[in-house]
C-alpha cells in the first residue's frame, strides 16, 4: 500500500502539511485511511490552521480510495457480460453434460469431490482434451497424475480417420494448447497463479487462442497439510486461494475445475475434505463415485447455483 510520502509526486496536494497532520493521527499510508474514521479526521482538520488544504488532501485520498475497488455495475451490464463472455464448455462426457445442462460454466469454480479412483482425474483429462481443441488450458498437477497419452487417446477417439500426417498435426496442435505445471506446495501454486494473472492481463483484448480452462488436480493435497487445529494461517491461505481463483475466473473468463478428496465423516459416510470453511468457495460441487470393477461412474450434485442438490446421473469414460 502506498505511503503518502511516495504519492506526493503524483498528487501534489498531499504535501508535507497534510502528511504531518495525518502522521499526528497515526496515518502513514492509504491503507491506514481505510481503517480510520474519516469524518473525525475532517472534524480535526476543521480546527486546524490550514483547514482548506487539509480538506483538499482528504478529498484527494478519497478519490484514490475510489479507484481501489471494483466498478459498480447495474443489472443490465452484468447480464450483458454474462451473455457475452460466460459461456458453457461441454466436458465431452455425455452424462455430466446432461446433468449440468451443457457443461461447466466460465467464471465459476466447479469442484469434483470423490474417494480415490472415482474418476476425478479422468473427467479433468477428458474436459481438458475437449476444451483444448479451440482454447488454451492450464493444468496444475500436484500428484503427477497428468497423462498426455490419455489425452491423445481421448482425442484419437473423436477425430475422423484421415491421413496419419493430418492426424498427427491435429494432435500436435491440440496438445500444444495444454500447459501442465507441477506444483507441490501452496506457495508454488500462488506463484503460478500470480504469473498467470499478469500473463492474462496482457493477453486479454488480443485475439487468437485465449486461455479458457484452469484445472487444479488436486487442491486438497496442497491445503490439507496446512489445516491444523491451532493455527489460523491454514484457513487464511485456503480462503485466499479460493478468492484468487474466483478473481481469475471472473475477470479473465476462465472456467476453473478443482479436485478435492473425501475424508471419513460420522457414521462411516465420507464427506468432502477441507472442512466447512471451504464449502462457501466453489460455485458448484459434484460428487463422483465408481461402481466397483466396471467403467460405470456416478455423479451427483452437492451444490449448484441453479439446480437442486441430489440430482444424479451415470456416465462412462
Amino acid at each position, binding site marked *: 500500500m502506498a505511503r503518502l510520502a511516495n504519492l506526493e509526486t503524483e498528487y501534489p496536494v498531499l504535501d508535507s502539511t497534510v502528511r504531518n497532520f495525518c502522521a499526528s*493521527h497515526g496515518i502513514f499510508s492509504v491503507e491506514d485511511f481505510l481503517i480510520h*474514521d474519516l469524518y473525525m479526521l475532517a472534524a480535526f482538520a476543521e480546527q486546524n490552521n490550514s483547514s482548506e488544504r487539509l480538506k483538499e488532501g482528504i478529498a484527494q485520498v*478519497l478519490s484514490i480510495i475510489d479507484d481501489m475497488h471494483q466498478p459498480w455495475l*447495474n*443489472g443490465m451490464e452484468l447480464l450483458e457480460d454474462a451473455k457475452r463472455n460466460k459461456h458453457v464448455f461441454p466436458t465431452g462426457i455425455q452424462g455430466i453434460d446432461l446433468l449440468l445442462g451443457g457443461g461447466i460454466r466460465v467464471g465459476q469454480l466447479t469442484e469434483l469431490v470423490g474417494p480415490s479412483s472415482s474418476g476425478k482425474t479422468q473427467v479433468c483429462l477428458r474436459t481438458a482434451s475437449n476444451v483444448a481443441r479451440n482454447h488454451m488450458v492450464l493444468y496444475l498437477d500436484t500428484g503427477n497424475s497428468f497423462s498426455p497419452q490419455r489425452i491423445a487417446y481421448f482425442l484419437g477417439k473423436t477425430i475422423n480417420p484421415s491421413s496419419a500426417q493430418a492426424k498427427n498435426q491435429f494432435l500436435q496442435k491440440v496438445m500444444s494448447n495444454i500447459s501442465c505445471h507441477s506444483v507441490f506446495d501452496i506457495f508454488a501454486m500462488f506463484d503460478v497463479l500470480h504469473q498467470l494473472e499478469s500473463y492474462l492481463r496482457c493477453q486479454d483484448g488480443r485475439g487468437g487462442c485465449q486461455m479458457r480452462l484452469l484445472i487444479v488436480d488436486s487442491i486438497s493435497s496442497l491445503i490439507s497439510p496446512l489445516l491444523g487445529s491451532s493455527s489460523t494461517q491454514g484457513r487464511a491461505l485456503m480462503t485466499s486461494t479460493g478468492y484468487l481463483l474466483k478473481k481469475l475466473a471472473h475477470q479473465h473468463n476462465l472456467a476453473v475445475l478443482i479436485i478435492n478428496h473425501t475424508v471419513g465423516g460420522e457414521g462411516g*459416510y465420507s464427506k468432502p475434505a477441507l472442512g466447512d470453511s471451504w464449502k462457501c468457495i466453489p460455485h458448484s460441487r459434484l460428487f463422483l463415485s465408481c461402481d466397483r470393477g466396471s467403467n460405470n461412474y456416478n455423479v451427483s450434485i452437492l451444490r449448484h447455483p441453479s439446480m437442486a442438490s441430489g440430482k444424479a446421473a451415470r456416465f462412462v469414460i
Partner: protein
Amino acid sequence: MGSHAKAWLVEDESAREMLDRVLTERPFLLLPPLHRVPLRVGNVVELVGPSSSSKTHILIQAAITCILPKLWKGVSYGGLGHSAMFIDLDCRFDVLRFSELLNHRIMEAANGSSSKVGCHQKDSEAQFERMKPYNEELFALCMKRFLYIRCYDSSEFLATLKTLHYRLQKEREVHGVNVHLLLIDSIGAFHWVDRGSSSFPLEYDNRKSWHLQNVSEAVVQEIRRLLLVHPMLVMATKAVVLGNKYSTNELTCLL
C-alpha cells in the same frame, strides 16, 4: 428567566405528527419472504445459517421485490419501485438465475392480471405476445435499478463503504433514484484472511494495524455512519459452521 423556562415547555410536534413524520422518513419495508417481520428502513438484519440454506436466495427475492414497481401500465406488480444495492463478498452471484427469477415474477404478475379478466386460452396467448415488448421494457427498467459490486478482500470492501456516501449522493442527484435496500452477501467472508493477517509491530505507536478487530470496527462504523445520512434497510448473510450433529444428513441421499 421566565421566558426561558416557558420555551422549554413549548411542544415541537404532537405525537400524531411525529408518527406521520417517522413513518414517511423510515417506512416499513415488507419484503417477502420476510414480510411478516416488521422491518423498517434503518434496521440491520443478519441472516445466519450453514452453507446451502438459501440465505442468498432470500436476499435475491428481497432485491427483486424492491426493484419491481408497484403499478406499471395498469398491472400491479406489488413491488416498491426503489433501487437496491448488492455488495457481493462471496463472489458467487449468478446473474442469469437472478434474471430468470425476475422474468418469472413479471410473467406471474402479468398473467395474474389477465386471468382475473377471464380470458380464453388463445386470448391469453395473444395477450402474452402483445405484452412481450412491455415485459422486456419493464425487465430492463428493473435491472437498471439493481446495483452490484464485488469485493475480493477487506480493503476493497472498506474502500467501497467509504465511497458509498458520495455514490449514493450522486445517484440521487443525477438519476433521482433512492436506494432503500443494501444487501451484503456473506459479511464473514474475509474472517479467516483478516485473522491470519499478521500484526507485526509497526514503527509508530499510534498507528493502527490491519487485523480482524480493527477491520470489523471500521466496517461497523462506516455502515452506522451511512445509515444516519442515507437510511436504508441492511440485510447481511453469514455462513456459520454448525456442530457435528447437523452434518450427518449431508451425503445419506447419495449412498
